[in-house]
């Protein structure tokens, strides 16, 4: 589903943001990307959605060869991948409903159909009652749910979640994780970048560890605790 092979990324004359990374994610997997700030988690997400190109290596997402993807095909790729951005990237002058409806607007779905779909998704993430509010009126957890709802609105095959529990308290973080797990159980492949080791340990999913742009671990889901012990 997602295959990064010997991928390196260098920004300007600085050190490598990613060095010789090879990761393969199968359809329906839930993978945690862990590592300290600056380890390259977000860079991997940005490469997968072709926000930038790697300096070296190849990336294949589903049937898309990301490196050789023509520019005009990039919007098609991005419609297939839902992204929960670290900074959420919600439009503050639009309501929650309008923010979530934005991807549908982009693909020109009829308003009635869009309304139905948005309400379904908002309901599934538990914030339907906030649909007419603006982002500034919502809590951190509710905003995360809004970002997840927007990422899910086009029923993507892949969901990339960049630190979706970053600024949340434990209870809210767990609610978000449960939501993502439920989405994964329905067949969506999920890559989630996080710092939260508690969540990673308890969930028992595959963990890909990065440090200073290097791949330092790739622990399969069933024994995440053992992998931690080895370290």
């Amino acid at each position, binding site marked *: 589903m997602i295959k990064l092979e010997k991928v390196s990324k260098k920004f300007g004359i600085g050190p490598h943001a990613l060095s010789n990374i090879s990761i393969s994610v199968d359809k329906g997997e839930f993978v945690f990307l862990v590592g300290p700030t600056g380890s390259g988690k977000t860079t991997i997400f940005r490469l997968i959605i072709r926000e930038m190109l790697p300096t070296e290596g190849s990336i294949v997402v589903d049937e898309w060869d990301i490196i050789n993807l023509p520019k005009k095909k990039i919007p098609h790729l991005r419609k297939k991948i839902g992204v929960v951005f670290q900074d959420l990237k919600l439009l503050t002058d639009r309501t929650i409903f309008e923010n979530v409806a*934005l991807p549908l607007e982009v693909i020109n779905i009829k308003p009635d159909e869009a309304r139905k779909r948005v309400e379904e998704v908002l309901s599934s993430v538990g914030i339907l009652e906030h649909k007419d509010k603006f982002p500034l009126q919502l809590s951190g957890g509710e905003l995360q749910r809004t970002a997840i709802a927007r990422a899910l609105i086009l029923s993507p095959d892949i969901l990339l979640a960049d630190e979706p529990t970053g600024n949340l308290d434990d209870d809210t973080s767990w609610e978000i994780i449960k939501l993502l797990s439920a989405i994964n159980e329905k067949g969506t492949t999920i890559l989630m970048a996080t710092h939260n080791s508690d969540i990673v340990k308890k969930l028992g999913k595959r963990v890909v560890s990065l440090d200073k742009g290097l791949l330092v671990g790739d622990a399969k889901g069933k024994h995440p605790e053992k992998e931690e012990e080895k370290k």
Partner: protein
Amino acid sequence: MKFFKTAWHNIRRSPYQALAAILVMTLTFLVVSFFTFLIVGSSKVINFFESKPQVTAFFKDEAKQENINALEDQLNSTGKVASMKFVSKEDALRIYRQQNKNDPLLLDLVTADILPASLEIATVKIGDLSSISDMLKRSSIVQEVVFQKDIVSTLINWTTAARRIGLGIIGVLSLVSVFIIVTIIGIKISQKRDDIEIMRLIGASSWYVRWPFLFEGMFYAVVGAIIAWLIASAALVYATPVLSAFLKGIPVFPIPLIFFLGLLGAELLLAIFLGFLSSFLAVLRYLK
């Protein structure tokens, strides 16, 4: 429809920028309208003179009637004269009074003595005007010959100059309008940089992002053109009585409705072109 809605949303967000863009477009199209009136009007005047081959000979005060009659016979004998009309000093005074009946001051100052008698000669062909004119100039009783070829060539010179100046001014104003709209759309794009980035990241195509800005530029130009057309047309209709009196005898007025509609159509096309060009340049410059 969605793009129009987004464009309208953008316009309402910054009314002063919208006003500036519309005003500069209005100014440009006002100049376009007025120069169109001038050029079309002067063309009609020229056509009128060209279609009436005529020479007017003004006689000296001492010219005797028998000399004038002799000159008339001499002209008739050429076979080039289609019609001839003698206007005596009294006739000239009557015409003058008729033309200035609303201005008593001008009527008081002028008597038949100071107006010359004249002979208006229409030729069969426009090419005969020169030879008739030469014949009149050689006559000892003729003070001055007004030859419409001179009037026409003077008018053509003036019209050509006006057309060049007009086109120059329109060109400069169009450039100014384009630059102002490029700047305004550029500011709008900068203000919406985050929104644009988000839209792109969720899969919006380049054209999806561009269209609202292109519509916005076209909206400013079209609104400016309509306002300018309304002002210029109203001004022309308002000035029609004065201009009709000034161009007495020349069939320029009333101006047909189709002319105004044609002008509106042409201005709208130009506006769409200028608006699209400006916003497209802005989009190319600021939405890489």
